[in-house]
């Protein structure tokens, strides 16, 4: 296999691959931030005593967690132009572009998974904290923002980071709507130069290094937290 292994194709396509990697990292970061924010909202809704908040958010989270990510990407990619046409009334309205459709798809998808993690984290904060906060005269918003969430997030950071690493791996799926992330860039070079073996193995190696270092860092973070407790 390695007799004809062409390292030079990897070397000369590094700038283009770096562009793809910037896309992957950017999409991961934005989806992570949006997902955690939306996930926290969903978690608080699920935990609220008002059925009108907890039932829809529960239904949304359960539904999104039972369908594949590719299907969610297709939903937003094909349906957003139709929605734009309906809203603006203009039959020739274009969508918002594949990048923003993918970003919305990833954010909505990951929000459901983050919601479950954050909900578990919030429920792990002792009830005494909430009672003490209310006894001191804080209202719901102050108790949540200043007492419950900070403690909940401290416990959840390792799992949230692990889910974000999985999100980084999942961004490779934007391939199905034609966006060029790192895997897409490697695939384009592979097909243009006929070097499938080299480019796909290199892509696998890069993903492995990034994700393994990420999970190693999370493990060390977890060890540090456990000592502190």
């Amino acid at each position, binding site marked *: *296999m390695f007799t004809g292994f062409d390292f030079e194709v990897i070397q000369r396509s590094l700038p283009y691959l770096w562009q793809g990697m910037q896309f992957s990292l950017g999409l991961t970061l934005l989806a992570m931030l949006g997902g955690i924010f939306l996930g926290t909202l969903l978690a608080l809704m699920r935990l609220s005593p008002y059925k009108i908040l907890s039932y829809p958010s529960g239904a949304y989270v359960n*539904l999104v967690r*039972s*369908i*594949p*990510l*590719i*299907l969610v990407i*297709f*939903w937003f990619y*094909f*349906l957003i132009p*139709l929605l734009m046409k309906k809203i603006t009334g203009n039959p020739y309205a274009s969508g918002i572009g594949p990048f923003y459709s993918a970003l919305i798809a990833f954010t909505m998808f990951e929000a459901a998974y983050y919601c479950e993690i954050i909900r578990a984290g919030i429920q792990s904060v002792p009830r005494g904290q909430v009672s003490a906060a209310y006894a001191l005269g804080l209202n719901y918003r102050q108790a949540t923002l200043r007492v419950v969430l900070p403690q909940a997030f401290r416990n959840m950071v390792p799992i949230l980071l692990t889910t974000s690493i999985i999100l980084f*791996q*999942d961004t*490779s*799926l934007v*391939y*199905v709507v034609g966006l060029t992330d790192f*895997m897409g860039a490697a*695939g384009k070079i592979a097909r243009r130069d006929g070097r*499938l*073996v080299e480019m*796909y*193995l290199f*892509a*696998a190696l890069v*993903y*492995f290094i990034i*994700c*393994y270092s990420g*999970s190693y860092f999370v493990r060390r973070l977890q060890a540090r937290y456990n000592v502190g407790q």
Partner: protein
Amino acid sequence: MDFSFLSQPAFSGGGVYLDWVISGIKWTLLVSILGWIIAFTVGSIVGVLRTVPLAILRVPATIYVEIFRNVPLLVQMFIWYFVVPEIVPKTAGDWLKTQMPLPEFWNAVLCLGFYTASRVAEQVRSGIQSMPRGQTNAALAMGLTLPQTYRHVLLPMAYRIVIPPMTTEFLTIFKNSSVALTIGVLELTAQARQISEYTFRTFEIFTIATIIYALITLTVTFSMRWLENKTRVPGYIGGSGK
């Protein structure tokens, strides 16, 4: 919301669009279930190997799990389909490229199987390691060999403990089967996209696909809950998961 397109004749002859949907469901279920059979057997072996005291067995298992967990499924799918026929010896590679029946399907099954096996291995390992050390020590003190200890003492309880997270993995393999569309397996998501291209009924067909995936998830969840109740060990409160 017009569902009548399902009974309209398909563009490429031979039946109506509903047949495409059913064919998609069939391929999704086949890929997922065959992949799960591979994942469960290989994953159990690797998971057990990760817990044995012998380093020469433990280290390859750890390497396997780390490699297959840290490379995205799409990349693995491409490597199985495009790269493996080039890497293996020439005669095997030629057979893989020209004479293998249903190459996309079997590559998807193998890829999904080995990917999910690494996750199953982690579950099995955590199940075994959550058992009290006294179990192993008592078994060895009674004269059982290590394989016998695993077979009669550790694994029966470990599998019962990890039924809930294993359910998640089983569900995940059904969802990950959609990645097979990138190498050409016409499973449910691919068929839904094709039908939307031909009939322009995007909203309706994606709704149908969503409902079918949700039904598959519900079925799996309920059957695993039934399995958990059937295998529950009376009196072992901590181990049976609730």
